[in-house]
């Protein structure tokens, strides 16, 4: 038929069928079964071509459609011309019933979805209510362990943020700076440039603690004979020099 089928995600065979019916602009109660069956199968083939896994439900529906199609081709049983009776024997009836039922919920789901999008509401966490009658406080949820876990979590989160920003915070003195790290930094700097003024190492330090840690790292490297500190004149600039 040469229809260009736009691949969409369908929730199931009924969803796909509804889509095809809507696209063909035909009455759901009088589906041109041959046409719709062809389109349905074309769709499955397209899925196959794209190596999409076709759920078994889709295949079962294809079989059902083919069965209905062939039953429609059979000569009609001779009835007394009673229209109602022949309508009852319509092989599409069961399928139509299912489609109509499914459509009802699909529409409802659509409505819920739009409510969901518009009903963005927020609540407030409960107040912590004081019970002043009690001189002694008891807490259900804090033990020493809780406190430590909370601390670990908060510090870890802080460190992650700190790494992300690459910015040194103000006023915080804790074990942010490790001698090992500073030793690595000094090694790196001396790799780029063999001789560096002593003072330059401290230029970017954010606080006293960091300065001390850098200094300790330097002493450590001197002890390990990885670097030399040279002062050419009294009170003159100290030059740090790498060994390698």
């Amino acid at each position, binding site marked *: 038929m040469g229809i260009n089928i736009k691949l969409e*995600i369908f*929730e*199931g*065979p*009924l*969803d796909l069928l509804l889509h095809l019916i809507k696209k063909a602009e035909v009455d759901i109660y009088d589906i041109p079964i041959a046409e719709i069956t062809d389109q349905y199968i074309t769709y499955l083939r397209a899925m196959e071509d794209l190596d999409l896994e076709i*759920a078994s*439900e889709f295949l079962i*529906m294809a079989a059902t459609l083919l069965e209905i199609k062939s039953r429609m081709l059979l000569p009609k049983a001779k009835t007394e011309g009673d229209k109602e009776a022949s309508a009852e024997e319509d092989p599409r009836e069961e399928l139509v019933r*299912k489609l109509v*039922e*499914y459509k*009802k*919920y*699909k*529409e*409802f*789901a659509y*409505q*819920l*979805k739009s*409510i*969901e*999008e*518009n*009903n*963005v*509401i*927020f*609540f*407030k*966490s*409960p*107040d912590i*209510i004081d019970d002043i009658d009690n001189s002694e406080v008891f807490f259900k949820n804090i033990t020493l362990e809780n406190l430590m876990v909370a601390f670990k979590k908060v510090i870890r989160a802080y460190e992650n943020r700190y790494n992300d920003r690459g910015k040194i915070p103000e006023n915080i003195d804790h074990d942010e700076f490790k001698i090992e790290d500073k030793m690595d930094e000094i090694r790196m700097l001396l790799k780029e440039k063999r001789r560096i003024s002593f003072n330059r190492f401290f230029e970017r330090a954010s606080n006293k603690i960091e300065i001390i840690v850098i200094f300790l790292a330097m002493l450590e490297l001197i002890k390990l004979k990885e670097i030399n500190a040279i002062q050419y004149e009294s009170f003159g600039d100290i030059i740090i020099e790498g060994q390698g």
Partner: protein
Amino acid sequence: MDNFLRELELLNDDDRFKGIIEALLFASGDPLSIKELSSILGIGEKQVRRIMDQMIEEYNKDTRGICVIEFNNKFQLSTKPEYGNYVKKLVKPDNKQNLSNAAIETLSIIAYKQPITKAEIDEIRGVRSDRAITTLLEKGLIREAGRKETTGRPILYCTTDEFLKYFGFKNLEELPELIEFNMEFEEE
């Protein structure tokens, strides 16, 4: 005190009770039932109901950013939906990832046909709904509601208070109307 006087006094107190109820709902954060409010305030449930109706009305004013939501005779304060986008700038909605199409389809069937088994849902949707059901259970929008007395005694599912809250429904009776209206609209 005779009845007439008592009634009069209570009426005058309504305003004060409104203040107290607002304080209670605010402090609680969680929903409070008519029963709880009635017992804390020391007034009848009917009076609580009347005051709540007035409060819900009064919160509708434009100057209010919060409102009283009601579901299953419980009340809770929440921000108004129309300001949701502003609040989002400030507070990350926890867990407020929108539901998948499969989940919302499944939910709409459960909402309307509850209590219902998985097999019955699968039959209506024409596909399996296991994943959708798990998601809905995790989100607290549905819950298990006993077992159907039939072969295999399958689990029955129904919606929760959280479901009502999530979609802003007062109670389940509102739903059929919604779906019926939807159908008529469709037919035209």
